[in-house]
């Protein structure tokens, strides 16, 4: 009698499970691929960029892109009003946008988690105070509040980043607080408390890991907001200052060439749109894979 070996089922790792669900959303995979592409470009900008982002080719002012009439392969996407290579500026701009986006998201995520844990765990006056302040910060549109803060601190890329971190803070605070409230009285938390764990341990080691899924999703989605709002501030002259190759700032200076040189206006915006879109696609996929409850 032949007995086939029962096929041993390998246990599914959490990562494999996540990837299984994530992969089912085609848009999310495309988004992830594009984000990976942009990240590579940002990391290798100094190697890949054909020219320096600030070098002015005075003989090639407003040279059209290679694929249109009169363009040359020396400047694939053309040059701007002072003869700088647009492709190189976009590549270095990716570095700037992603870095600033990352810093903004990390700062507001970490601060939001701390405040949300405190509000949810301690409750009472601390909770009321933190939530009221969040209410006030959320009563203004994000961009408007950021503009107000930058108006006070003065326009610079650092201040704009600081303003946006503050603006996004309430989302994380609320999200963390809501999860903490749901988890606080679960058996495993009570058990840990009975075993003698102190407040900090309960907050950060026992409860927090179980609240992370919605936070990761929110972080991805607000990454795209951060890039978008940063570009908007740059466009209004309140963010990165020229000659920094920030995408929004590039658009602000491109406005005067709208009649004469379409490429100066088109490409930076295309870079913003595609990057933001990729992050949003990825965020949707993450939400479906990590947190089926949030799925609409």
């Amino acid at each position, binding site marked *: 009698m032949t007995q086939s070996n029962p096929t041993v089922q390998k246990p599914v790792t959490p990562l494999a499970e996540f990837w299984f669900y994530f992969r089912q959303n085609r*848009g999310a995979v495309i988004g992830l691929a594009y984000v990976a592409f942009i990240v590579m470009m940002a990391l290798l900008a100094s190697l890949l960029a054909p020219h320096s982002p600030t070098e002015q080719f005075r003989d090639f002012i407003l040279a059209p892109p290679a694929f249109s009439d009169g363009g040359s392969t020396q400047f694939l996407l053309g040059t701007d009003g002072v003869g700088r290579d647009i492709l190189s500026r976009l590549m270095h701009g990716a570095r700037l946008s992603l870095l600033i986006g990352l810093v903004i998201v990390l700062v507001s995520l970490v601060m939001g988690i701390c405040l949300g844990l405190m509000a949810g765990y301690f409750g009472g006056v601390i909770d009321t105070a933190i939530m*009221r*302040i969040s*209410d*006030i910060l959320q*009563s*203004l*549109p*994000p*961009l*408007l509040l950021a*503009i*107000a803060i*930058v*108006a*006070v*601190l*003065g326009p610079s890329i650092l201040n704009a980043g600081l303003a946006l971190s503050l603006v996004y803070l309430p989302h994380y605070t609320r999200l963390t607080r809501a999860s903490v409230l749901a988890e606080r009285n679960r058996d495993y938390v009570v058990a840990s408390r009975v075993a003698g764990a102190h407040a900090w341990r309960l907050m950060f080691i026992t409860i927090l890991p179980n609240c992370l899924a919605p936070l990761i999703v929110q972080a991805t989605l607000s990454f*795209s907001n951060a890039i*978008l709002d940063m*570009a*908007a501030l740059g*466009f*209004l*002259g*309140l963010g990165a200052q020229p000659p920094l190759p920030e995408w*929004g700032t590039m*658009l602000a200076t*491109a*406005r005067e060439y*709208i*009649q004469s040189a*379409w490429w100066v*206006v*088109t490409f*930076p*915006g295309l870079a*913003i*749109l595609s990057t*933001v*879109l990729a992050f*949003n*696609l990825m965020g*949707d996929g993450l939400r479906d894979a990590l947190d089926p409850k949030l799925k*609409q």
Partner: protein
Amino acid sequence: MFQFVMRRVGMVIPTFIGVSLLTFSLIHLIPGDPVTVMGGERGFSAEQRAEVEAMLGLDKPLVQQYGLYVINILRGDLGISFVTKEPVMHEFLTLFPATIELSVFAAIFAILIGLPLGIIAAVKRGSVFDHTVMTASLAGYSMPIFWWGLLLILLMSVQLDITPVAGRIDALYWVDEVTGFMIIDAWLSGEEGAVGSALAHLFLPSIVLGTIPMAVIARMTRSSMLEVLGEDYIRTARAKGLSPTRVVMKHALRNALIPVVTVIGLQVGTLLGGAILTETIFAWPGIGKWLIEAIGRRDYPVVQGGLLMIACIIIVVNLLVDLTYGIINPRVRHSK
């Protein structure tokens, strides 16, 4: 009902106080001495300094300053602009109709396009049309509207020469300001072609400002419709032999609209925030452009007053949306 209204109104008061604290503290958060910063590069003489300090009330204790600030707000006094020497409230009221006009047209555009797209996408779930609408609305949601505006100007105004580039009406027409709403004023002026010109000037800015709300409305309508279309009573209506159009438009849409109305109400913030960018691109003389220019000129009373007014409008609109929601849906009214 009365209790519900009072409870909701009561919840708004702390937010009002908070916003007034925020705008009040703006001027005190300026690094260094605010008066020196206001003086700019030329600086102030000693007398000018004292005058500015007295005008802003900076010579008084902080608590008293805040008290005065709130009393003045309640009296409708937002201070005097440094640059134009006009009362901030007066400037705001003069410019606000332009922003309302733009926002209303943007909202009409968003609803008129977004709602049908969402409904059809839900009915034809999984079709090419559905996928196209969903992709387009995600792109619309991710759109840097300041670039979208430039792109539309490039295409419609520069290349095709269909729409005007900036402003509210052609310089050809002399329109007296009666209501502040250009469409109405143009109509009142009785000049031939004035209304058409005003509409043409509104066209691109409305599309630009309405793009993100449109995307949000389309997505929300689709998901809300999908939920309702799965309900038992829809199956019953279909089983009764009602025409598909009647089932969708009458039975499903009514219930699906409730969350959509909320989302439309929440777009007021998006519209007022987006108005800053849109007005800057199209040289639209509304409060967004006014605010940005005030920041550039360090005209702090205008910045403070403008922010306060915008925040108040958003708070009031959100309150109204909440109240309407309570009227439509009794469950909201009676829950705590």
